[in-house]
């Protein structure tokens, strides 16, 4: 009984989370108590600072001698979680930083809220990454989702924003309910909400509950596919992305998605990867790979027809969700156990590519007032440096060497090959080629079309900086992938951090 309980000493391990909670509370109170005339921008800076502090704590927690298990192993501070948390922190940090140039008083009325809502959302993502228990997983998921619903709706007077928020809410809630339904069955067969116990229950009496295990896992997969916006459960994504304020869109595209992936990864691998019946693992992986394939095909093909860059990014996000699913479905083979590094590396690349793309989109939105792809026309003449950054970002998104996107795909493909998922790899490459068409469409617009050349675009500082940082890191990732990957291999332990084989 005593092990169940949280001790004061355990709080040290929760410092990143506590930082976020305290910052969120303090900032909200601060926002409330300050008079209206005070500019709320400094709350954004404080948000950024608290994110960084939290990030420092996460870094300090990296590579512990022994993974820390809190509350009877329902909350884990291990390297899987810490690495994912770093991704969330970096993503959210960029989103906040970009927002400084985006938030305008006449559109977003609650500037304070806009900034500090990022904190509980990130906290939700943290909880999703750290949990090994259905309850905490679900709570984290909802904390993230519900905060995101609000953030999408923050452009109060914009009908699109409202519509997007409502759609997101309904779809998100349905997905949550489906996930929950699956979870309830897992609980039913094991009498426990702890993932390790559930795995043991599946392993010990699989045959008496075969049907329920299948139902539960497919419900989970369906629900989580909603959350990562993988086809065929992606219908909400384009509308929501379009309607949301652009920094929030990038938050959804990067942090929300990454968090849902963390949850999928943890659940699928703890429950099914090892120590259970091969047949159920195979079935789950097959289902995931079908979703991955569908996401890649539908995402890329539909993206071809988009005129709005935001929607295009949404569909590209769908396709990327498919790519990111590949290392998860690849499972293991004789000499292939590096699913997580493949996944994480591409996720990092995806983070920078997407954030960069959104930064450029925001620059365009500010100058042209719309998010149409045609707005890129002649960008090379109007803002050559931005166009340069965008070219690098787009090349990375398209997966051209030598960029992070290329190497990310390379590792994922290599993993798929090593596990004999040839068809999946083939689909991935074929759809990548399809993607060339629309990614290079943007390049075409920037370099080959002439827009209104007389009008030069004023690039806001934070957006320009973000775009260039992302472009440089995107390319740097391509040249020195081994730096990250070797570090990752040193830090991350498959058996201890992901499979929880104790």
């Amino acid at each position, binding site marked *: 009984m005593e092990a169940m309980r949280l001790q004061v000493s355990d709080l040290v391990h929760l410092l990143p989370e506590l930082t976020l909670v305290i910052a969120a509370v303090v900032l909200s109170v601060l926002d409330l108590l300050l008079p209206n005339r005070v500019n709320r921008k400094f709350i954004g800076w404080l948000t950024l600072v608290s994110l960084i502090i939290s990030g420092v704590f996460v870094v300090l927690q990296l590579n512990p001698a022994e993974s820390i298990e809190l509350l009877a192993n329902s909350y884990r501070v291990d390297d899987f979680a810490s690495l994912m948390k770093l991704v969330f922190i970096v993503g959210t940090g960029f989103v906040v930083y970009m927002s400084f140039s985006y938030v305008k008083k006449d559109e977003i009325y609650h500037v304070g809220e806009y900034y500090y809502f990022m904190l509980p959302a990130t906290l939700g993502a943290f909880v999703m990454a750290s949990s090994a228990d259905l309850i905490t997983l679900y709570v984290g998921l909802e904390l993230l989702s519900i905060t995101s619903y609000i953030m999408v709706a923050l452009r109060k007077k914009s009908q699109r924003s409202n519509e997007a928020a409502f759609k997101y809410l309904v779809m998100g809630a349905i997905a949550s309910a489906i996930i929950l339904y699956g979870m309830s069955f897992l609980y039913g067969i094991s009498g426990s909400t702890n993932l390790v116990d559930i795995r043991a229950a599946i392993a010990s009496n699989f045959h008496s509950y075969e049907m329920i295990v299948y139902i539960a896992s497919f419900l989970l997969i369906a629900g989580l596919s909603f959350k990562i916006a993988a086809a065929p459960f992606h219908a909400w994504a384009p509308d929501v992305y379009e309607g949301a304020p652009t920094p929030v869109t990038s938050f959804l595209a990067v942090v929300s998605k990454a968090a849902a992936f963390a949850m999928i990864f943890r659940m699928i691998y703890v429950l099914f990867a090892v120590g259970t019946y091969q047949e159920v693992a195979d079935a789950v992986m097959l289902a995931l790979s079908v979703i991955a394939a569908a996401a890649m095909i539908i995402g890329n093909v539909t993206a071809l027809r988009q005129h709005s860059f935001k929607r295009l990014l949404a569909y590209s996000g769908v396709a990327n969700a498919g790519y990111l699913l590949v290392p998860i479905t690849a499972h293991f083979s004789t000499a292939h156990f590096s699913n997580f590094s493949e996944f994480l590396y591409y996720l990092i690349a995806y983070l920078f590519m997407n954030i960069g793309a959104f930064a450029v989109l925001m620059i365009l939105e500010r100058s042209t007032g719309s998010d149409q792809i045609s707005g890129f026309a002649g960008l090379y003449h109007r803002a050559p440096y931005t166009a340069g950054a965008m070219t690098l970002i787009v090349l990375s998104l398209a997966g051209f060497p030598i960029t992070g996107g290329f190497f990310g795909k*390379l590792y994922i493909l290599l993993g798929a*090959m090593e596990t004999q998922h040839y068809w999946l790899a083939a689909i991935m490459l074929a759809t990548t080629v399809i993607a060339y068409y629309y990614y290079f469409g943007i390049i075409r617009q920037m370099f080959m079309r002439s827009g209104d050349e007389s009008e030069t675009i004023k690039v806001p500082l934070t957006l320009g900086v973000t775009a260039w940082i992302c472009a440089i890191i995107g390319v740097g990732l391509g040249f020195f992938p081994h730096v990250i990957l070797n570090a990752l291999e040193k830090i991350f332990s498959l058996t201890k951090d992901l499979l929880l084989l104790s």
Partner: protein
Amino acid sequence: MLDNFPILSLIAFSPLLGVLILLFIPKHLGHLHKTVAIVITLISLVLAGVLFVNFHTDGSGMQFNESYDWISFALNHELIGQVTSLSFEMKYSLGVDGLSVAMVFLTALVAAMAAMASVFIKKRWKLYFILFLLLEVGMFGVFMAQDLFLFFIFFELTLVPMFFLIGIWGYMNREKAANRFLIYNGLGSAIMFIAFLILVSTAGFTQIQSAGEWKIFYSGDIQNIMFNLFQNPQSYANLADPNNVFYLSTELRWTIFIMLIVAFGIKLPIFPFHTWMLKVHTEAPPATVMIHSGILLKMGAYGLIRFGILFFPAEAYQIGWVFALLGVINILYGAILALVQKEFKLVLAYSSISHMGIVLLGLAAFNEIGIQGAIFQLVSHGLISALMFLIVGSIYERTGTTELSRLGGLAKSMPFMCGILLISGLASLGLPGLSGFISEFLAFLGAFETHKVFTIVALLGVILTAVYILRAVLQITFGAISEENTRLLDARLIEAIPMITLVAFIVLLGIYPSVLNGVLEQTVGDFGYFITNVADKIGG
């Protein structure tokens, strides 16, 4: 002399120096940009010449090897027994054999000429030359890379600048052409990439077991893969066992092989995949087409030889007749369609298809002479087509058209250029004494040994070639002159230099083939020995 000198890296990345310089030159100094670019390409050319001269003609295998660990990272091996390390390795490793040296020199030459021919470019010099030089880096790299991934990276590196070059500086339908180029080649490289990856995950899997150490790694190193495939019967790729996931089964071998053929076939282009190339040839700016037709197409053939045939000699040997058939189809199809074209550019485009058919036919022979002929044809066609497109560019700049019916009698107004055109036409149709003759002769000679019927049919193509080339060239030079064509100026110096240089090399190859032959001999010999040896072992 050059044994420990990183000459290859120097060549490959010498254009980058130019890129750096160009970045710091303000936009409006157009001529300065051009001068820098030309100088840089000339430097590369000189370096390539040094390489060519220093190449040990009697050395077998790769020379001037440079190999550095570039990307090497650990993979997770917690669940694999006593293995001490599992890693993935991607080396920065360059090396050249005779084939590569020939292609590198060709690249440097054509690129330098194309840089000079870039007078036709009227806008955005800076970006143009930056991209041009990047393209050159990619092309050098492709011919030198000794690692599958490195090869792929350089291969892709040629795509992007080319896309821009076509899309920005091309003619009316440039964007469409650029797109088509991108998608077709992208598809090709994707297929190639799949094949590479399967190779790496099977034949690239190597283990080294020594006292207490058990290292295994995946690598894309070409030598390593060759070693695992052919010399090492204990490598996992060769151990038939249903549980061995690294086993390269016969089906898998065939799959990879066919994928490679398709991938490089698109680039070459082999008959059903050729449509994109016509668009590029008609829409791209002349200097770009020089590069494209002169070198980029050769990358397909190079890949076909280096990866298709040398990795899977037995398979290639078994379907040698398919190669021959495809070669014949290419020759005849290209020739017949070239015959009916009304536009000079299209004539040349189809002629390229036809000439690439000869390469295929030569390869299909699977003997030394055939292969030598094929490689000769690569070089020779590279020179000839570059020259032809250079002239086309000059003519187009002056007349604004390349339609045969609207050109004619240009010999009167610009005799020099027409003379060059005539020479190149003659070279193209294989007049003895010019490079075209040697290559076609060798290729047909080789092919006749193995595929008699196909070769005889293919010879028809040679006659057709003569017909369409003469038809077009004579129409341009001696046909009825139209009013507006009388006052055209002849070639400027900046055009004349590349023309003369290219002609010089064509003639040199024609009358003294040993220049090239010396370099190729040992390599081709190795290839031929290797193929027959392996094919015999398989019993093909």
